[in-house]
């Protein structure tokens, strides 16, 4: 039962009177892969307007643009499945960026010039993400605080702390001079595949297996569908929720590594403007804000959809205000589709 929660879209094709064939629109709306169809349709629609969108280099750019966003959105998917939300992810990205950079930078970093700089720097990123995630989870589960309050205040605190930290470690507003080996994680490639893609694949496959093929994953869906029932059934609800925040924090830290490597700079405002993109990508993919429903492949679709829209608007030279308006419209459209989907399912 818990497994089908992740794919509840096609659940109600039978009625008491027998089999009812759904219309193509209903089947489209109920499809798990609606976002992929929408992405394809949008891509084909804008292709004649901006032919550059279909060039090999543009497609390659789109792929690399979506990877850091995908990694952080994967972490958010875990939290949303248990009906939580993590608003602190962008501040984790920023804070981890400057602290990790301060360890590695050749301009007076704690381990600048040392062969240990890169491994220690990466470990710092991951530790920061994990610890902040753990703290968020602890406040939500052990202290009973609402996730929105914990992570929103965390967002404010960490954003300010990141700027304060940078002023103490750099003459400028960012930390540069990062080792080449670290920068290559965000920019380089291995076997013709961008390193960032290897990282995102590792995160995505691990997350997919964790959610879909482990008891822990089933716990998460059970908690999202009915927390009380899960508790009575013996699911360690508090511990499981706490771990979703740790996963979210670590994913944000990995995204921070990709962003920081890409820009060759640790900056305290890194990722500060993408919070809406992260949540929108997950929800557009089909993960429910109410919990109990979500898949990693859906999140991939949501991120892809947003990145295709974003890229097309950039290629058109649209102003940021148009980009915001279009994105807002798309998110509203996704919410309407979701509402329609629920109505169709309820109707049977």
């Amino acid at each position: 039962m818990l497994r089908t929660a992740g794919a509840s879209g096609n659940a109600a094709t039978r009625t008491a009177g027998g089999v009812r064939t759904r219309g193509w629109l209903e089947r489209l709306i109920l499809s798990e892969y609606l976002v992929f169809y929408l992405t394809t349709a949008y891509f084909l629609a804008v292709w004649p307007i901006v032919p550059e969108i279909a060039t090999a280099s543009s497609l390659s750019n789109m792929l690399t643009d979506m990877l850091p966003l995908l990694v952080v959105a994967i972490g958010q998917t875990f939290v949303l499945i248990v009906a939580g939300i993590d608003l602190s992810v962008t501040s984790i990205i920023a804070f981890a960026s400057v602290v990790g950079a301060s360890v590695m930078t050749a301009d007076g970093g704690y381990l600048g010039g040392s062969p240990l700089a890169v491994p220690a720097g990466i470990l710092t990123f991951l530790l920061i993400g994990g610890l902040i995630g753990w703290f968020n989870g602890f406040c939500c589960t052990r202290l009973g605080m609402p996730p929105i309050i914990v992570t929103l205040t965390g967002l404010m605190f960490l954003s300010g702390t990141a700027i304060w930290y940078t002023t103490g470690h750099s003459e400028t507003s960012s930390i540069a001079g990062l080792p080449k080996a670290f920068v290559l994680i965000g920019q380089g490639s291995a076997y013709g595949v961008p390193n960032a893609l290897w990282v995102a694949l590792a995160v995505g496959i691990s997350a997919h297996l964790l959610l879909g093929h482990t008891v822990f994953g089933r716990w998460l869906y059970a908690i999202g569908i009915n927390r009380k029932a899960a508790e009575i059934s013996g699911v360690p609800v508090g511990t499981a929720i706490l771990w979703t925040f740790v996963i979210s924090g670590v994913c944000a830290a990995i995204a921070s590594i990709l962003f920081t490597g890409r820009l060759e700079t640790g900056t305290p405002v890194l990722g500060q403007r993408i919070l809406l993109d992260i949540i929108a990508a997950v929800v557009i993919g089909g993960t429910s804000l109410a919990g109990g429903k979500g898949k990693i492949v859906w999140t991939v679709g949501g991120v892809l959809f947003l990145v295709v829209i974003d890229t097309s608007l950039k290629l058109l030279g649209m102003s940021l205000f148009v980009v915001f308006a279009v994105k807002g419209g798309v998110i509203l459209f996704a919410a309407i589709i979701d509402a329609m989907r629920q109505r169709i399912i309820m109707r049977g």
Partner: protein
Amino acid sequence: MRKIEPRVSRRSFTVGALLAAGTAGLPIMVKAQEGKTVALLFDSLVSPFWVSGIEIMRAEAAERGWETLEAISDFDDNRQFEQVRAMIEREVDGILIIQTDANAVIPAIRAANEAGIPMVHFNRPPAESDAYSVAIQADNRKIMQDTVQFLVDEAKAMGGTYKACILIGDLGDVNAIQRRDGFFDIVDQHPDLIEVVARVSTEWNADKAFAGLTNALQANPDINFLVTSSDFLHPQIEQALKIAGKWHPRGEEGHVLFGGFDGDEGAYQRLIDGYLDACGVQNLFLEVDMAFGAFEDLWAGKQVDKLLLDPGFVITAANLEEVRDQMWGYIVWQQQQ
């Protein structure tokens, strides 16, 4: 229950065909441009300086027969990097960029270098690197020195001693640092005349500027010499001085010697009203001309220096009519009138 057949009806085929035809026709509407295409990549349009800047650029580009593509990154370095790559895909002829961070823009410069597309930084130079680009920048330090020197001369002429306050910008911005240094270059030469009692860090944030200046005026009610690193903070300065009972025009008892920087329309208004004594003006028209000239030189294969300086000028009540046509804020002010 009605069964819906999943087939393509004549009506849906007609609608689909019309949509496809319309979509296919769109490229004709946006067909390849004549002349050069330049991308204008701003990080924000939060102050009149940038709004005027982009308007002057559009007008100048149109005059030269160039097309422009615009994008705003909303202070997001990663987004700006992606915008640069998108403009490279569009095969623009030049990229004019106003980056948020001097270090984080380096990969974008490298990408433009690899694509063979000239990049010009407007008003903010990048950090030192092996990547090649041209930066147009006001000679902030010199302009601020000249502005403060005028105020010092005024102070000497009026007599007495002065308690000074400076509103400093974001110290991550090289412009802010240079303006601060220009202020101290002059003030430090006159320790008997001027004592700096307050350094307000604004981080280019109007709220912080207001709070900081209010606190400074409470702690030092005898402040009578004030310099701001940007004119966009004038409304907050006016409010704070009014609360402190120090908002008086030249010639009135209690007038605070007041110097500005940028040359916006508010500064022009305060100059003619007598509240502002001097303003260091960035010659926006000249800077746009220099930026576009750099593109032309680079397209022609000429070598252009990595940093080109706008000497700017100081405007005061004495030379107002003589130099105001070069002050971008005056043009905005005229339009508002």
